[in-house]
């Protein structure tokens, strides 16, 4: 006779391994006083251009560095290196997202306490990165004006998991008849209260607002560590 199956309770988080590493990273970043920003978006939304500009303009004022994830090429790291900030490429192979362990490995040999800001650019993908905590303080989701105002409704999970949204390529807004009110409303629908920045990496418009926000968050982090 075939034995009856027995039901046993387990209760284990499937992504526990990632979460444990992410927590260790976050503790390490806090202790070092470095503010970590991760960037997620669809491919082609302008993450690398935005980050290159960010690194270039912040470098005279802060100690900045970046890790950049990509499936196959090292092109993004080469582009970002033009900013003269320390940059390391994480090539994920076939993996569609970054995991905390990859960030940990990429940081080997880096002293994070030498930094004010560390930027981590995820693989261009609006689905998979949402589930993986990388130990970041702030997750930034980018949406370019050329993508359509309903992106947040199509990918609610990643927009909901983010802390801040950045609308990129604002210099093209008029040409593509970008409807700001609708985009803003859709973002607020999937993530009420989310702060939204409008920027153009090309003209530089809107970047100073974003930098002021980052700088304030860095002070808050350091004050919290001290007290």
């Amino acid at each position, binding site marked *: 006779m075939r034995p009856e199956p027995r039901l046993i309770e387990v209760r284990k988080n499937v992504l526990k391994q990632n979460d444990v590493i992410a927590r260790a990273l976050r503790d390490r970043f806090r202790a070092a006083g470095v503010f970590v920003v991760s960037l997620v978006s669809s491919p082609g939304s302008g993450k690398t251009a935005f980050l290159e500009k960010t690194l270039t303009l912040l470098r005279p004022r802060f100690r900045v560095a970046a890790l950049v994830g990509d499936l196959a090429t090292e092109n993004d790291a080469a582009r970002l290196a033009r900013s003269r900030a320390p940059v390391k490429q994480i090539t994920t192979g076939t*993996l569609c997202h970054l995991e905390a362990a990859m960030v940990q490995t990429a940081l080997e040999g880096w002293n994070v306490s030498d930094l004010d800001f560390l930027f981590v650019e995820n693989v261009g993908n609006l689905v998979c990165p949402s589930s993986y905590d990388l130990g970041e303080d702030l997750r930034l989701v980018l949406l370019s004006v050329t993508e359509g105002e309903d992106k947040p409704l199509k990918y609610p999970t990643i927009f909901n998991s983010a802390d801040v949204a950045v609308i990129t390529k604002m210099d093209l807004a008029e040409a593509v008849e970008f409807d700001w009110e609708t985009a803003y409303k859709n973002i607020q629908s999937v993530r009420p209260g989310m702060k939204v920045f409008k920027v153009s990496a090309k003209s530089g418009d809107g970047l100073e607002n974003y930098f002021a926000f980052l700088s304030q968050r860095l002070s808050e982090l350091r004050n919290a560590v001290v007290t």
Partner: protein
Amino acid sequence: MHELSIAMSIIELAEEEAEKRGAKIEAVHLKLGALAGVVKEALLSCYEMACENTSAQGSRLIVEDVPVIIFCQTCNAQRTLATIQQFTCPDCNTPSWQVLQGKELEVVALEIIECAPNHA
């Protein structure tokens, strides 16, 4: 598409638990939140594929969908969302991003068959 690597993690976790008990896995019960970022259909087909040549081969993955529950400050109560496209209270329309439930990706139970009765 990260469902395959998630399916592999689920199997790894289940195998570990089953091995402790010297048992064979019949089924894995999973709680899947609407905000977990995992597509159920993709996960189910990946699971079958990932089970091949493991001790979980032939086992079933039973997925329990977990809806998003938010806390509504106006109602001072928990509210279940019907859609993840609108984070507002279904009763009073107040927006809320305080998510109390819906991110679960958790193995909650296993159905196992104990191979050898090694318990007294």
